[in-house]
C-alpha cells in the first residue's frame, strides 16, 4: 500500500477520519428501495436497507437478515431470520416486516421498472414464528436466494401496517394499512431500514447524506456521516476528486487515470460482470446489408465465425480500453456461476477469409454496425476498431453510432444487422445472459427479451429451461455450461471483452471492487485498519 508516500508526495489532506464523501456518476431517483430497479438507486439504498441475503464482491450469495435457509422441496424454502436485529427507529426485525415488504412491491405506484419481477413468482409466505419464514414459489426457482438480495426489507411499523400482515400474491395482501408511496421516503421517519446508515437528507440533484446507525447488528459502521453526490459529467467528477471536494469517485474516464494516479490517488479496479458483445441478426429478412443479392450472410455460421476470428480482442483491450478490460471467451467472466473457462477466440484473419470464401462470399459484403456512443466504456471507439478489423477480411462496415436512448429503441426495432452492446448479469449467474440474449424470442414465456439478433436454438432453449428449474447447484452449473457452449460453438453471439470497473480514491481509503459495479459506501474502509 503506497499510503504514506502518497500522502506526503501529493500533499493531500487525508479524508476526515469520520466523514466520507463520494462522487457518483448518476443519481438515485428515489429513496424508496422498491420504486425503481436501477443500479444507481440500489447502491444508495443498500446503505440504509438490507435484504434477507447479500452478495459479496464476487456476487456469491451470503446470509443477510436471514441467517440460513434450505430448500424443503422444489417450490418451498425455509428461512431462519437473524435474531436481535433492530430497525433505525429501535423496533425489532421480525418475519412480519419481511411479509409486509414483499407485499408492498406490487402496490408501488408509477414505478419505472418494478420489483415485481422478483415477487411475481412467490405464491405464498407464512411465518412459523417471529424468526422462521417459509416461502412458496409458483415454479421451481433455484435463484430465489439470489433474487431476495434485490428485495429490501422495510419496517412494517414505520410504514403503518396492521399487527397482522397476511400474504397474498399480486397485491392481495391483508393488513397493509395505508401504504406510503415513493415520495414519502424522502422523510427519514419513513425510510427506516436495518442497514448500517440512517437516511439524514435527500436533496434531489444535489446529495444524499446518511449518518451512522449505532445500533447496527453487524458492528459499528466506519463513518460518522457519508455524503453521496451525483456528478454526472466525467471531467467535473475527476476535478472534484482532485480538488478534494470528494474523497472517492466511481468510473473515472480511462484516459484520466494516469493523471489521477500521478497525483497520489489510489485506483482500484476489478473485472465486472458486464460483457461487451456483438450480436448478429439471424433471420432471412435483415436491413443494412449490401452486396449479397438480398441474402442475409449472417444466417451462415461460417460467416459469423469469420467475423469472430477477424477481431483482435487483445488489441482492443490494450489500445482502446487502456488495459481496463479483458478479452472475453464467454458471456460472463470465469469463475462465475455457469462459466466453463472457454478460451478466447484466437485472432486469425487468414482463416476468417477462407471461411468467408467457403460460405460463398469471397469478396465480402457491406454491413451496418450499430453501437451506442455513451453507454459503455469507449463503446464507439471499440465499434470503429471492429469495423476496421472486419475490413481486413473484406467486410465493409459502416458504423452507425447514436446516443443510448436512441440506440436501444432502434436495436429493439431490429434496425441493425450487427450491433455492439453490453450485458451485466445482475444475478451473477450464466442463466441471465443466456435467457435474455440468446434464448429464442418468445413473448409468452418471457424468454429472449433482449435477443435482438433473434438467434434461436430449440435444443439450447430446452436445456436452459431445465437448468432454470433445477435446484441442485452442481447439476445446474453443468447444464448452463453446456447451454452456453452450444451457443458459442454456433457463433450465435460474439463476446468481445469484459469491462473493468474503476474507482479512484484518496490514498487513505480502500474499497474492495465489486463485479456488479456497485459503489457501496458502507464497504469503503479506512486504509489504516
Amino acid at each position, binding site marked *: 500500500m503506497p499510503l504514506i508516500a502518497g500522502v506526503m508526495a501529493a500533499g493531500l489532506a487525508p479524508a476526515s477520519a469520520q466523514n466520507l464523501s463520494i462522487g457518483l456518476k448518476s443519481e438515485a431517483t428515489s429513496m424508496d428501495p422498491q420504486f425503481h430497479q436501477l443500479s444507481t438507486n440500489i447502491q444508495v439504498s443498500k446503505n440504509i436497507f438490507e435484504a434477507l441475503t447479500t452478495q459479496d464482491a464476487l456476487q456469491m450469495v451470503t446470509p443477510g437478515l436471514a441467517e440460513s435457509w434450505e430448500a424443503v422441496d422444489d417450490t418451498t424454502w425455509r428461512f431462519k431470520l437473524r435474531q436481535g436485529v433492530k430497525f433505525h427507529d429501535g423496533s425489532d426485525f421480525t418475519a412480519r416486516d419481511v411479509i409486509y415488504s414483499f407485499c408492498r412491491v406490487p402496490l408501488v405506484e408509477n*414505478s419505472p421498472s418494478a420489483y415485481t419481477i422478483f415477487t411475481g413468482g412467490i405464491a405464498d409466505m407464512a411465518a412459523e414464528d417471529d424468526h422462521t419464514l417459509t416461502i412458496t414459489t409458483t415454479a421451481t426457482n433455484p435463484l430465489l436466494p439470489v433474487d431476495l438480495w434485490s428485495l429490501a426489507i422495510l419496517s412494517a411499523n414505520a410504514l403503518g401496517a396492521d399487527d397482522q400482515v397476511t400474504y397474498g400474491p399480486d397485491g392481495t395482501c391483508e393488513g397493509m394499512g395505508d401504504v406510503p408511496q415513493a415520495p414519502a421516503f424522502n422523510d427519514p421517519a419513513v425510510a427506516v431500514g436495518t442497514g448500517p446508515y440512517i437516511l439524514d437528507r435527500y436533496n434531489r440533484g444535489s446529495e444524499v447524506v446518511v449518518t451512522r446507525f449505532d445500533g447496527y447488528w453487524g458492528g459499528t459502521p466506519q463513518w460518522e456521516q457519508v455524503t453521496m453526490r451525483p456528478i*454526472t459529467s466525467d471531467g467535473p467528477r475527476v476535478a472534484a476528486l482532485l480538488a478534494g471536494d470528494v474523497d472517492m469517485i466511481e468510473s473515472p474516464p480511462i484516459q484520466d487515470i494516469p493523471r489521477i494516479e500521478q497525483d497520489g490517488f489510489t485506483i482500484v479496479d476489478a473485472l465486472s460482470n458486464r460483457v461487451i458483445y456483438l450480436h448478429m441478426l439471424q433471420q432471412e429478412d435483415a436491413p443494412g446489408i449490401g452486396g449479397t443479392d438480398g441474402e442475409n450472410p449472417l444466417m451462415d455460421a461460417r460467416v459469423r465465425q469469420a467475423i469472430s476470428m477477424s477481431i483482435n480482442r487483445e488489441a482492443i483491450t490494450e489500445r482502446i480500453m487502456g488495459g481496463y478490460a479483458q478479452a472475453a471467451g464467454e458471456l460472463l467472466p470465469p469463475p462465475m456461476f455457469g462459466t466453463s473457462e472457454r478460451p478466447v477466440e484466437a485472432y486469425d484473419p487468414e482463416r476468417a477469409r477462407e471461411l468467408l470464401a467457403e460460405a460463398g462470399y469471397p469478396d465480402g459484403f457491406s454491413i451496418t454496425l450499430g453501437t451506442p456512443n455513451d453507454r459503455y466504456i469507449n463503446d464507439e471507439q471499440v465499434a470503429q476498431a471492429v469495423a476496421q478489423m472486419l475490413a481486413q477480411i473484406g467486410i465493409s462496415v459502416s458504423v452507425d453510432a447514436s446516443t443510448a436512448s*436512441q440506440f436501444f429503441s432502434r436495436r*429493439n426495432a431490429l434496425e441493425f444487422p450487427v450491433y455492439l452492446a453490453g450485458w451485466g448479469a445482475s444475478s451473477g449467474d450464466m442463466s441471465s445472459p443466456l435467457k435474455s440474449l440468446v434464448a429464442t424470442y418468445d413473448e409468452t414465456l418471457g424468454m429472449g427479451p433482449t435477443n435482438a439478433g433473434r438467434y434461436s436454438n430449440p435444443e439450447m432453449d430446452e436445456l436452459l429451461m431445465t437448468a432454470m428449474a433445477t435446484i441442485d447447484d452442481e447439476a445446474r452449473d453443468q447444464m448452463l455450461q453446456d447451454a452456453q457452449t452450444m451457443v458459442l460453438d454456433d457463433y450465435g453471439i460474439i463476446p468481445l471483452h469484459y469491462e473493468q470497473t474503476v474507482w479512484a480514491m484518496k490514498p487513505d481509503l480502500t474499497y474492495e471492487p465489486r463485479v456488479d459495479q456497485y459503489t457501496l459506501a458502507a464497504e469503503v474502509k479506512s486504509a489504516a485498519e
Partner: protein
Amino acid sequence: MIVYLVRRVGQSLLAVMAMAVLVFIGVFFIGNPVDVLVSPEASQAQIAATVERLGLDRPLYEQFGIFVWNALQGDLGTSFVYGRPALEIILDRLPATMELALVALALSVGIGIPLGVWAGLRPDSIAGRTIMGGSILGFSLPNFWQGMLLILVFAVLLGWLPAGGRGETTEFLGMQVSFLTWDGLSHLILPAINLALFKMSLIIRLARANTREVCMQDYVKFARAKGLSPRRVVLVHVLKNIMIPVVTIIGLELGSMVAFAIVTETVFAWPGMGKLLIDSINLLDRPVIVAYLMLTVLIIVGINLLVDVIYSLLDPRIRLSEMKG
C-alpha cells in the same frame, strides 16, 4: 397600454401553443423511454405493461390530446422516472437556477457596464484596448471550457474554492438560497463567474459602442459646452441614453440564463433546472422535458414583456400603445 398588453399576451399564448406542438412531436421521435427505463432483465410482458401504464401504446395525436387537456388544467404530466408531477420536480430546482442566474446577471451588469463605458470614453487608451481584448476572449472561448479552466485553476491548483455542487443552503423568503453562508457562497462564485463571462463581454461591447455613439450627440456636446462636470455628463447624459439597448439585451439574456444555464450547471454539478433537463433527456423522461421547455417559453415571453414595460420608464418618448409587438 392595456390594449398593447392584451395583444402581447395573445401573441405569447400563440407562441406557447406552437411550442407545445413542436416539443411534443420532437420528443416523440427521440426514442422510446421504456427501452431506457425498464430493467434489462424484465420480460416482454412486463415491458408491455409499462408501455400501457405510461400511455405510450396510444397514437401520437391521442397522447398529444391528453397532454393538452391535462395542461389546460395545470397538469403537465407525471415524470416517468420520479413518479411525481413534472412541474413540481422542475419548480423544486427553480430556486437554484434563479439564484445562479441573478448573481451572474448582477456580476455581468455591475462589471460590464462600467468597463464598457470606460472603454467607450477612452477607446484608444491601453485600458480601453485591454478591456476590448478581454471581452473577445469572453466571447469566443466555449462556455464549458471556461468552466473547466476555472475549476482547474481555482479548485484543483489553488484549492481556494470547491469544484462543484451547491454547498450549504439556508431558507430566505421561503426559498433555499446559498448566498447567505460562506460555504454556500464559495460554491456559488465559480459557476456564477462562468455563467456571467459571456454576458459580461456582450454588455461591455454594447456599452462601449453606444457610449461612443452617444458622445458624438449634440446634447452631450452641449452639456460639455455648458460646463457640466465630466462626471455629471457621463452619469446622467451618457449612461441614461445607453441603457435602452443594454436593458433589451439584459432582459433577453436573463431569460436565456435561467432557461439554458445547462452547460454551467453540468460542469459545476449545480442542482438546477438545466442539469435536470440534461438528466431527463438522457433518461427520456418525456413529461419533464416537455414541461421544462414549456416553462422556458413562459419565462422568456414573460421577461420580454417586462422589458417592454421598462423601456417606457427609461424613455418617456416610447409609448407602449404605439409599439408594434
